[in-house]
């Protein structure tokens, strides 16, 4: 791995982590309002997967979408401003945390509805096929979303039509408070692909290099017109589902176990071990990211709220 690339990946993971920690802080201080589902802990998935894509490839994201937006090239100040509902936000303050999107970057949007973007991703794949383009779509969704009807309909359609879509499930063991064990009749979620004759793989979602390796294989596959795949990236969200979540449904031991496999630490250690980066450099990088986050926060907080006149704008083309 080239140093540049390592820095790129590590930095993006740090950006997401610190971004989320900052949002948590802003939520606690009531500066950020409304729901925010934080991505901390799952950084290797978004960063690893999206780093495989070309700029004009598409992603669809979820209610836990900050990480995807950052990895797909979102600007931190614009994203932060959006979450605070500011006019300078990427969606002009109309979307908020649950609806971060930027079509110019190929981010077809976060979604407040679980499973809400599975159809969209499938349609984007169809569009690619009809336009005879060479783009690929990564459709992110959670373990909980695999129990939604539209998961079933979309995967069937994509497989039948060989659409270039990677269905990437972020299995963080819980859908809100309900564990995969309690919600899903099969615990190994790759089994769900059997119903569509679709290839599927379990992936260590805490190891960014593993994520990249597997995603690359299937993105190439899709780009060659060979069809979709279902990837189950096993990961963990550090925060509760949302601010008010007391996390009664999981144990502190379980949390600790997963934190021992923190994707940023894991990758950092590896880079140090392989002599690609020095500890010092990593610390510097972290500081730089902190400054970026502070800058983004400053920008967001100082940005104006939307004008009243914005209420009726942007609805119709």
């Amino acid at each position, binding site marked *: 791995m080239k140093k540049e690339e390592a820095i790129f990946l590590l930095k993006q993971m740090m950006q997401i982590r610190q971004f989320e920690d900052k949002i948590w802080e802003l939520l606690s201080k009531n500066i950020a309002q409304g729901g925010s589902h934080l991505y901390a802990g799952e950084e290797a998935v978004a960063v690893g997967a999206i780093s495989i894509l070309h700029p004009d490839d*598409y992603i669809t994201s979820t209610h836990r979408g900050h990480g995807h937006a950052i990895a797909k090239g979102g600007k931190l100040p614009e994203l932060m401003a959006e979450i605070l509902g500011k006019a300078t936000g990427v969606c*002009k303050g109309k979307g908020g945390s649950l609806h971060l999107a930027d*079509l110019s970057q190929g981010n077809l949007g976060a979604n407040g509805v679980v499973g809400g973007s599975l159809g969209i991703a*499938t*349609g*984007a794949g169809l*569009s690619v096929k009809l336009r005879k383009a060479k783009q690929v779509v990564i459709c992110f969704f959670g373990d909980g979303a695999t129990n939604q*009807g*539209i998961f079933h309909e979309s995967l069937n359609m994509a497989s039948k039509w060989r659409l270039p879509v990677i269905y990437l499930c972020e299995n963080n063991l819980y859908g809100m408070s309900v564990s995969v064990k309690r919600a899903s009749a099969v615990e190994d979620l790759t089994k769900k692909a059997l119903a569509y004759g679709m290839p599927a793989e379990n992936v260590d979602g805490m190891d960014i290099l593993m994520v990249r390796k597997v995603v690359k294989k299937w993105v190439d596959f899709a780009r060659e017109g060979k069809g979709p795949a279902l990837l189950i990236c096993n990961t963990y969200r550090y925060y509760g589902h949302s601010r008010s979540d007391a996390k009664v449904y999981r144990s502190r031991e379980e949390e600790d176990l997963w934190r021992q496999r923190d994707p940023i630490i894991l990758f950092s250690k590896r880079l140090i071990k392989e002599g690609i980066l020095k500890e010092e450099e990593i610390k510097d990088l972290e500081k730089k990211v902190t400054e970026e986050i502070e800058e983004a926060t400053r920008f967001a907080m100082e940005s104006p709220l939307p004008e009243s006149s914005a209420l009726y704008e942007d609805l119709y083309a």
Partner: protein
Amino acid sequence: MHNREITYRQALHEALTEEMERDGKVFLMGEDIGPYGGAYGATKGLIEKFGEERVRDTAISEAAIIGAGLGAAMTGMRPVVEIMYIDFIGICMGQINNQVAKIRYMFGGKAKVPLVIRTEGGAGRTLGAHHSQSLEAWFMHIPGIRVVMPATPYDAKGLLKTSIRNDNPTLFIEHKMLYNTKGQVPKSEYLVPLGEAEVKRKGSNISLITYSRMLLYSLEAAEELERQGISVEVIDLRTLFPLDIKTITESIKKTNRAVIVEEDCKTGGAGAEIGMQIMENSFNWLDAPIKRVAGADVPMPKSSILEKLAIPSKEDIVKAIKETLR
């Protein structure tokens, strides 16, 4: 004369054909629209003409049909998707309401959703409660989506073409009892604008506001009343959202009385909104309460005799007009 008589079905078929020929981004997707030609025959022959890529038979997966249509629309295509009966639209209501209609606004205007959802509704074939509904009112209540309901072959063709070229999502609702009706349609290209009602018959004593199949009943009622010396102005809304309140208001300022004729269940139906807007705009011009002639508040019963009772008849319209003029 460049006009010919063609059916509503043919008019739709021509609109689809012409737009697909004009723009390679237009494609069709839905259940049994390929070799079968669509449940009501509007897409017959299109798969032979345009091929399987652009005329896509799907599995019975309404939510994915809409979702995929949306995703394609957001990424450069202009899909025309079909939900076979509007009765099934509940299955994909989440996709329409939360995704199709809202995405542009939620994204600060940064998305474009040129998606047409063609579907069909209404009673008249004794198909019972799952194949006879009129659900337009739900969609009038969803900001972000246009609701179009043509009553004549001319409007069907012109409005479908406009809808396909429009960059906003449109719900295009046909009526199962209209496919075989005939009307004058020019050979040369034309468009009918969205959001404009049309006075289909001029009159001076009362304004009859209606749309879709009920236009036919309304015109019959107007004719009958003409013979009795009552002059009825019949307004065909054509587009339910946005509603052309201007045309309605102008008519009412002239007639001072209004009756709304709608096939959907009365309570919470399209007529409630239409009537309320009239009240808000023309209260001082009204000489009598606005009446609604509407469908019964029941699921559509199968039995032909009950089905007829459950939707407005010409007699119901005549009666309501007379009561309003009393």
